[in-house]
């Protein structure tokens, strides 16, 4: 009984943490999409000086644990004289990380557009960049929306790792409540439930947008 009481009492506090989680995730995905778009295009470049670094970036970030990346940025960079507060450090780490995954999604999205679209656009005199901007990317983004939605969901969950550097998002808020109430099961369960609610709602929103776009 106590356990449930504590959960109810602290639920508003946990919801505040959830709000922080959402903001953190949204910022990071925002960075990830911008970064991923350029790196995804870069990987497809014929110029090796562009494509190789992009490939290395993607492989390195996908091949190392996010927890290590967060630690490197928050605990490691200060040694090089770059000191970030927990919140910016988390956004940078999550943004860089999702940038690598989104780059792969964007690359696949670009490759899914028939070559004729690129050629038709170029044959009208549009430049490579204009063609990307007006012809290829708009179509690619329509195709990759479900995958981007998945990435948003993954990042919502992964952002819980920001708790280790003291960002008061949902996970950290929960741990704080536990440290006062000692109700480990009910609070952790409450946290899990809120994460689930968030990812569930996000996946519904993505599906809704997808259907809207399919009929548009």
């Amino acid at each position, binding site marked *: 009984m106590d356990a449930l009481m504590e959960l109810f009492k602290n639920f508003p506090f946990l919801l505040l943490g959830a709000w922080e989680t959402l903001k953190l995730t949204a910022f990071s995905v925002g960075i990830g999409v911008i970064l991923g778009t350029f790196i995804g295009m870069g990987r497809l470049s014929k110029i090796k000086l562009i494509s190789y670094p992009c490939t290395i970036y993607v492989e390195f970030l996908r091949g190392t644990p996010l927890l290590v990346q967060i630690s490197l940025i928050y605990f490691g960079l200060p040694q090089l004289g770059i000191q970030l507060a927990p919140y910016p450090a988390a956004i940078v780490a999550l943004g860089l990380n999702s940038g690598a995954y989104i780059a792969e999604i964007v690359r696949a999205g670009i490759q899914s557009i028939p070559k004729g679209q690129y050629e038709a656009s170029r044959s*009208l005199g*549009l430049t490579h960049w204009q063609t990307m901007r007006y012809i290829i990317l708009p179509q690619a983004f329509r195709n990759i929306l479900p995958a981007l939605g998945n990435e948003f969901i993954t990042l919502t969950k992964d952002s819980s790792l920001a708790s280790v550097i003291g960002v008061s998002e949902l996970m950290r808020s929960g741990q704080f409540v536990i440290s006062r109430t000692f109700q480990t099961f009910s609070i952790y369960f409450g946290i899990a439930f809120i994460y689930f609610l968030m990812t569930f709602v996000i996946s519904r929103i993505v599906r809704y947008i997808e259907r809207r776009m399919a009929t548009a």
Partner: protein
Amino acid sequence: MMDLLHNEDNQNGKEITIKIENLVKRFGNLEVLKGINLEVKKNEAIVVIGPSGGGKSTLLRCINRLEEYQDGHIYLESIDVEKLDVNTLRARIGMVFQLFNLFPHMTVLKNLTLAPIKVKKIPENEAIEKAKNLLTQVGLVDKMDAYPEQLSGGQKQRVAIARALMMDPEVMLFDEPTSALDPELVGEVLDTMKKLAESGMTMIVVTHEMGFARDVADRIVFINNGIVEEEGKPEEVLKNPQKPRTKEFLRRIL
């Protein structure tokens, strides 16, 4: 299309719009064009025929530099195309593809106005006026707010032709524009192309439509195995081909 083309002099035989000299194109070790020579005069409509794999598409794609070539020269109005900025060159050459390649995420009107606005920096309202005018001429002004997927194949191709004409090209290239169409839709596209040719547009048309070649072409060019095997007036080439390969090709296709 009359009013939108600059066709003060409609007789053949004056300026040379496209001149191709000894054009060689390889894909790796495969030599696809083996020294093509061809001249296209202003206002002339050329029909290119020939067996599959002979290099017809590759030739068109070299002209607007969608493909690089290894040797030889292509001149547009006596300027080597390699000396021109590639985007400027392409804006001067219209291209129509077998699979239309309309932009599916844009309305018909947007498909037409995008390039003039972005490449030629024409004001939007001017571009829209011009698009409506051209759509009227291809009989599709009522479809300007439709998306490509809502159009038939023949309508798509007519939109693609109008889209290319928006740039006021000096020459139009057609690569088998009716090959992907249901038979009953071929006529409307060929009619549009015929009107265009009659209005004085300089055209290079790759097609298997021999009726169109006979009625519209000023000259037929037979390309086989990467070279111009034979060329001449339609009545000469179609009725009385000189080369055995041409005879054989025509026997199979007619």
